[in-house]
C-alpha cells in the first residue's frame, strides 16, 4: 500500500450513457470479474485504484467510474478536476448510446483540463448479432475527435486491458500533462464551477 503512494498517479474518468457497460469494464479490468446478471446502475461515482506498468514504469491509476444517469449530472463538475484521461464508453448493440457520444465528448472537452487524453470504447463486442453500430463508425467518430478507439468485451475479456494501457501510454507521452495537472486544475475548476452554478440552481 505504502509504496503505491509514491508512484506517479494518473486520474482517469470513465463516462458514457447509463447501461453502456462502464462498471462492467472496470470490474473486469480491476478484479477480473464479470456478472451478467448484475445490472445495478452506479450511484454517483465509484472509485478504484489499479497499478499498471507501461514501458517498464509503474503507475497508480485512480479510476473513477461515473454514473451515466442524467440525475447525477450535478456531480460531474466535482470529478473532472485534475483528470488526465477520459474514457468514453458506448454500447455497440445500442445505437442511441452511440449517437449520444457527441454530447459526452462535448461534456468531457468542456470540463476536463485542456490536453486531457480522450479514448473512445465500444463495449459489448460479444453481442455481434445485436450489433447496431459498425466498427468503422466508431473509428470515424474517434478520428473526428482526435482520439484512439477500440472495441471490448467485458464478458469474454477481449481487449479489456487495451484501452487502459493505451490511454496511459498517451498520457505519459505528454510530460506537460503529467506535471501541469496540479497547476492547471485550479483554472479548470473555476471554469467548471461557474458552469456548475446554473446546474445547482435548478
Amino acid at each position, binding site marked *: 500500500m505504502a509504496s503505491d503512494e509514491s508512484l506517479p498517479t494518473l486520474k482517469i474518468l470513465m463516462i458514457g450513457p447509463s447501461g453502456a457497460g462502464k*462498471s462492467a469494464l472496470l*470490474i473486469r479490468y480491476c*478484479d477480473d470479474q464479470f456478472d451478467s446478471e*448484475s445490472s*445495478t446502475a*452506479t*450511484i*454517483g*461515482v*465509484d*472509485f478504484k485504484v489499479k497499478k499498471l506498468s507501461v514501458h517498464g514504469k509503474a503507475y497508480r491509476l485512480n479510476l*473513477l*467510474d461515473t454514473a451515466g444517469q442524467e*440525475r*447525477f449530472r*450535478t*456531480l460531474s463538475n*466535482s*470529478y473532472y*478536476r*485534475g483528470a488526465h484521461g477520459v474514457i468514453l464508453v458506448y454500447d455497440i448493440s445500442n445505437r442511441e448510446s452511440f449517437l449520444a457520444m457527441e454530447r459526452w465528448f462535448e461534456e468531457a472537452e468542456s470540463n476536463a483540463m485542456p490536453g486531457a487524453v480522450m479514448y473512445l470504447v465500444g463495449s459489448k463486442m460479444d453481442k455481434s448479432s445485436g450489433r447496431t453500430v459498425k466498427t468503422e463508425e466508431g473509428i470515424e467518430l474517434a478520428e473526428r475527435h482526435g482520439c484512439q478507439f477500440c472495441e471490448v468485451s467485458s464478458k469474454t475479456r477481449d481487449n479489456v486491458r487495451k484501452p487502459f494501457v493505451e490511454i496511459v501510454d498517451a498520457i505519459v507521452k505528454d510530460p506537460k500533462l503529467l506535471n501541469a495537472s496540479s497547476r492547471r*486544475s*485550479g*483554472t479548470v*475548476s*473555476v471554469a467548471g*464551477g461557474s458552469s*456548475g*452554478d446554473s*446546474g*445547482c*440552481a435548478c
Partner: protein
Amino acid sequence: MAPPAAKDAAAHNQDQDLTTILTTEERVELTLLVANITEVMRKHIQDTFDASLDTTKKQQPPILAVQDKNPNIDESKPHEETDDEEKDRKIREKREKELSAPKMLEMKKDSLDFFDKWRESVISRVGTVVNSPKEVIEKQKEKASTEATPESDPNPEPRVIRRNTNIEEADAALIELYPPTSTSLYSLSKDKRIALLQAMLMLLLSLEHYSSPSRILLLHISSSLHLPLHILTETEVKLAQGLLEAAKHMSGSEETQKRSDENKVARRWKVGLAGVAGAAVIGITGGLAAPLVAAGIGSVMGGLGLGATTAAGLLGTLAESGVIVGSLFGAYGGRMTGKMMDAYAKEVEDFAFLPLKGSKHHDTKPEDRRLRVTIGVSGWLTQKEDIITPWRAMGRQSEVFALRWELEALTKLGSSMESVVKSAAWSVAKKEIIARTIFASLMDALWPIALLKVSKIVDNPFSVAKSRADKAGLVLADALINKAQGERPVTLIGYSLGARLIYSCLMSLAERRAFGLVESVVLIGTPGPSDATVWRAMRSVVSGRLVNVYSENDYILAFLYRTSAIQFGVAGLQEIQDVKGIENVNVSEMVSGHLRYQYLVGGILEKIGFEDIDVDEVAKEEETLALLEEEEKNEQEKKSGKDIDPEKEAAEMEKEVKKKTDLTLMQRATETLHLGK
C-alpha cells in the same frame, strides 16, 4: 455484524457499505444530497469573492419543511436589498477593482482549489461506500436483521450534553446558517436518519482528518435531515471516546501512557514555549501504535446505531491504526512547531494552551477528548484567572483550551485600563464624548485634554501588547498549520487583543494558504481593521461562521486604537461591509465599554446561537458583571465630588498600575515555583 464478516472487512475490504442501512434509492439520494450541499458550500466560497452587492439573493435551495422547527428564522436574512442603485454601482466598481487584484484572484483560486480537492475526496469516498461490489439481495436481508438487533440503540441518553446548554438557540442558528437542502431522505424514520448522520461522520473521518469543511458538510446534512444539532455533537463526542478507548486498548502498555501523562504535566510547567506545550498539552503522547480490529471498535461503539462491521468499514484505515487515531487527535503535532517557534521565540515570551476541562489538576483525560477544538484567547488580564474564566461558558462538546500568551504584557494592560476607566479624567471625558459620536472623535482626533493627559498610562502597554498579539498570532497560525490540534477543526474565539491575535493568525493562515483548518471564528471588540480586503482574506480560511461582534459605544477601544491605522476602520466599533458570509453582531446596548467584554463572552455567544454554550456559566458571568458595575459606580461617585488635577492623577495611577501588575505577576511566579520543577 457477525464476527467472521468483521474479520473479513478488516482484512480485505475496508469499504464496508451503507447498504446495511439504506436502499438503493436512498443511497442515490444521499449521494445527490452530498453533491448538492458541496455545491452550495462552493458557492459560498465564490460569494466571498463576488463583487455583486446583494448579499442575500436566491441560491438557498428550497426549504423543505422548516416550519415545524422554527417559524421565524428567516427574518434576519432579507436586509440590505433596498440600497440606492447609484451608490451600489460605485461601490461595486470599487469592489470589482479590489477583487480583480492579482492577489485576490490568486487567493480565490487557491481556496477553491483546496475545496475542490476536499470535495473530490469526499465524493469518491461516498461513491466507494455507496457502490458496494457485492449486491443487493443478500444485503437487504442483512439489513432486516440489523434493524432487528437490539444492539442498535437509536435513542441514547444524552449523557454528555448537559441540559443547561443552549440547545434551542443553537438549533435555530443551525437552520438559519445552513439552510436545509431538500432531500427525500427527510422522510426516513428518525432512527435511520440518525444512523445516516453517524455513518456520514465516520465516513468523513475515514479521510483521516476531520477538516473544517467536513464539519460544515455535516452541519448541512444535519439541517437537511432535520435533525437537531445535539445529535451530531453527541455522536462526535461518543466517537472520539470510542476511538481513543479502542486505540488505548490496542496499544496495551498502559504504563507508557501513564508515564507520558505525568511527563506532560511536569513539562508544561517548566517550559512555556509552544513547541513543547503544543505537543504535550493538546496531543496525546505516543504509545498508540498497535492496530485495531473491527470487533474492538464495535464493542466500544455499541451505543451508536450502527453495527460494528459497518462502523469499522466506514472508518476505513482509522479503525485499523492507532497511529492515525493519534494524529487525528494531535499526538504528533507540535514537533515542527518547536522548530518554527525558534524564529519567534525571542519576541514571544509566553505561549501555551491550557485545557479547560478535566482541569483541576490540569490534565486532559481521554474522556475529555473531543473531535473538535475550541481555543479562547483573552485580551487583557486583571488577575491571572482571566486567561481561563471567560471561556468557562464553553460547553463540553468540543475540547476547550485557553491560550495563555504574554501574561506580563496583558496584565500590565489590564491594570492600566482598569485604572484609566476608574479615573476622574475618564468620567469627565466620557460625558464629553457622548455629546459627539465616538467615531467622529476617533476620526478627528478630538479627545478631551484631560484624557490625553492620562493616556500615557495605557498607550504604551497597549501598543506593546498589540504588537505582541500580532506576533503571537503568527505563532498560533504556525501551531495550527503544524497540526498541534491534530486533524481536528478549530474554533477560535477572542476578545480585545485576543481578537487581534486571532486576526493576525487568520491573516497569516490566508497568506500561507492554510485552508480547512479553522471551523468558526468569533472576534469580539477587535482592535483591527474593518476593511473588506482584510475580512475577505480571513473569510477564505474560515469554513464555518465568521462573526464580528462590535459595539458602537466602545469608547475605550476607540481611544486606545486612535494611534493605529484608523483609516481602515475599526472592526470592534463598526460593521464589516461588502463581504458575504460575515456575521455582524451589534452589542452596543450590552457593551458600554471595552472592559465589559471579558464578562460578556458567554452571553454574546449565547445570543448569536453559538453551539454548545453553558447557560449556567453565562448566568454566573452576568452576576459578576452586575457586581462589578455597582463597584465601579461607587468608585465613580466617590471621585466625582473632588476636582482632581489630571497630572497628579496620572502619576498616582501609574504607581497603582505598577503595584497591581507586580502583585499579579508575583502570584504567578509563586505558583509556578510551587507547581513545577
